[in-house]
């Protein structure tokens, strides 16, 4: 952790700013999330730094509240994805045999359906609440995490120290959580960063299509949806959330890249 490269530093600062804004939304947002505070699509002014939206709500406040929801949903879904994906992936690698076959084929089956289409189909028959949204996104993304963690664990599983643990008579729980998990952590942490970005894009896409976060709550994808008609009249309101999504994605990516190179370097590897 001696020196942080410039790119990673920029990424860290921007990511921290986004997360900070999300956490402190009630205190720093100038207006309420659903408060009508001006005219339709007012241009930016000292009262409304980014102007107002399609029904006169302050856009900066909407952005801050929306970021809070986007980041919260993406983070929660990433956690769900990793909790299930990593556990099942490790279980498959350690058990082998029919457990591995059953899990791997099930995941193959799920992965053969495009993620977005599957999410749209499921969400169109389920009540679209935040917990459902998080669970659906998390479980779909868990298939990707499963593949990675199974591959990582399969590499570690053949090491002599895992064999030594088996010869000692250790159970599955010890092998998974004490022998494999600590050694798989670095690639998984780097992957978590990337998965988080995919989740941000995923929830934004769903909201834009109307099957994500439901009004009166707002998220960035939803704000784009509400304001997309303004683009025809030269109103830039829809661009701000789009830029926010891109900026968050790039900054988290910079951090994830740095973690990945740090942990996959020759010497630093699993030492």
């Amino acid at each position, binding site marked *: 952790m*001696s020196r942080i490269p410039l790119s990673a530093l920029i990424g860290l600062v921007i990511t921290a700013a986004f997360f900070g804004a999300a956490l402190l939304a009630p205190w720093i947002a100038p207006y309420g999330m659903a408060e009508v505070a001006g005219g339709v699509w007012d241009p930016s002014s000292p009262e409304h730094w980014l102007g107002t939206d399609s029904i006169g709500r302050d856009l900066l406040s909407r952005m801050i509240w929306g970021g809070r929801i986007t980041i919260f949903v993406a983070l929660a879904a990433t956690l769900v994805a990793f909790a299930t994906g990593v556990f099942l992936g490790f279980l498959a690698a350690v058990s082998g045999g029919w457990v591995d076959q059953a899990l791997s084929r099930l995941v193959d089956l799920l992965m053969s359906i495009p993620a977005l289409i599957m999410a749209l189909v499921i969400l169109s028959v389920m009540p679209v609440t935040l917990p459902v949204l998080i669970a659906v996104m998390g479980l779909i993304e868990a298939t990707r995490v499963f593949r990675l963690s199974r591959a990582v664990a399969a590499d570690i599983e053949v*090491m*002599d*120290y895992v*064999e*030594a643990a*088996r*010869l*000692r*008579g*250790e159970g599955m729980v010890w092998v998974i959580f*004490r*022998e494999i998990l*600590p*050694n798989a952590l670095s690639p998984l942490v780097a992957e978590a960063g990337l998965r988080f970005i995919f989740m941000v894009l995923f929830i934004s896409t769903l909201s834009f299509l109307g099957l994500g976060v439901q009004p009166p709550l707002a998220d960035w994808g939803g704000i784009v949806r509400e304001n997309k008609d303004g683009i025809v009249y030269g109103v830039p309101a829809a661009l701000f959330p789009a830029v926010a999504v891109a900026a968050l994605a790039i900054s988290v990516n910079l951090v994830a890249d740095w973690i990945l190179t740090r942990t996959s370097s*020759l*010497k*630093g590897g*699993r*030492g």
Partner: protein
Amino acid sequence: MSALLEIDDLRIEATSYPPGEKPRDVTIVDGVSLRLERGRVMGLIGESGAGKSTIGLSAMAYGRGGVRITGGAVRLNGTDILSGGARGLRRLRGKAVTYVAQSAAAAFNPARRLMEQVIETTLAQGIPRSEAEARAVTLFARLGLPDPDTIGSRYPHQVSGGQLQRVMTAMALCPGPELVIFDEPTTALDVTTQIEVLAAIKEAIRDTGVAALYITHDLAVVAQVADDIMVLRHGKMVECGATAQIIGAPREDYTRALVSVRQVTHPEKSAAADPLLRIEAVTARYRGLALDVLKDITLDLAPGRTLAVVGESGSGKSTLARVITGLLPPAAGSVRFDGRDLSPALSGRSKNDLRELQMIYQMADTAMNPRQTVATIIGRPLEFYFGLRGAERDRRVAELLDEIELGKGFSDRYPAELSGGQKQRVCIARALAARPRLIICDEVTSALDPLVADGILRLLQRLQQEEGVAYLFITHDIATVRAIADEIAVMHRGRVVRQGPKAQVLSPPFDDYTELLLASVPEMREGWLEEVIATRKAATPEGTRA
């Protein structure tokens, strides 16, 4: 006339990144000078980390993995190659200086035919393909490869490891270099194969008149091929002289220690009445293979004794260990331990069965979880088998660390912070923590330097006297067997070809395989290789050598 290769006061540094500390520069080679005349062979010898490969590679101005040449001069034919720049180096490498790597299997591209790879650098010099191929075929024949005319059309996986190493030597000699660097070319081979490769390399060097740097850690091997030997330690020269002088009359203490390693001796103990471990008519095969890896193996091991299982790679000795530990249930036969039948599969064994039978691995690096401290590694069996916790456990860990001569200061270290010998000691302590009655030692010393390996063997012997534990010692090294065994079983292609007390197995009359095995162990004197080759040629008619 100046020497072919002159290295003056060479200094090589690298940046190390110790965990949790600031990066710092370490000196790998410090003030080494050498002169190599045309047609001579110089052996560079030393433990791992002595800088011998680094010096070898500096003869082609190459630094591996961030290694930098920071001082001194390397002159080839009187020209300084360090200041030649990239263009100068391109003319030099693969033409004037070539390189033979340790692991031929890893150095060849598996997707291309051997001939393409052998003549690649020769073609790059503008020599026509037909002439390059003719040269390669001549070299194949000279190196004693079978079917020299057609072997070039094979892929790397279609020839054996020993043959591949000879093909690589052909590759190095093909461009007609002035200097060849041999970097441990026979270390990865079995003794019976090593001798052929060694003889082929020696003949080829003599016939082509090329000069060579021969890097190895095995003094007995280098004594066969080198005219002069330089002994290195910690990047500094210890001693340099003619081969006869180094092995006959070493001047420095360190050289003397190297020449006289394997001082460990072990008076053979007679077998007790009841065997601790009895392997009865075991046949084993891996799933999906129609081949029996073990065929009808029957062995006995008495309590507190050492049984050495000897054989080359592929003889089935490690598979035998897997059968005994229960990782590979045998297809037929049984394993009896202390008078009771052991369940063939690991899952059917009781905690006590598992405790009494421990294992130590060849690669201590991969045998320990890099994320656990020494205290956790040694303490876990105490917790698991005896339920020891807290202060009681710590006290026992400290005791065990004392027993393996490390001391309790080591308990908070991670495996990456230990040397190779220390790692193996921690693995021994982990096995010992279970208070086992039998420890299977799978090539435990073969990844270690000779002096360190001696220390490990001595430790194992002391522990046997103190704890009365029996060892099943798997190895390919006859010297280790002499040092530690009570009984010996020689394995070849899945069968036990010879077994009995040490004195009996190691004295004539021999069966064919044991004789070959014993005769292939390099002896530390000049002329040994020629004698062996001459004996074999006399014994077998022309062209039928295995």
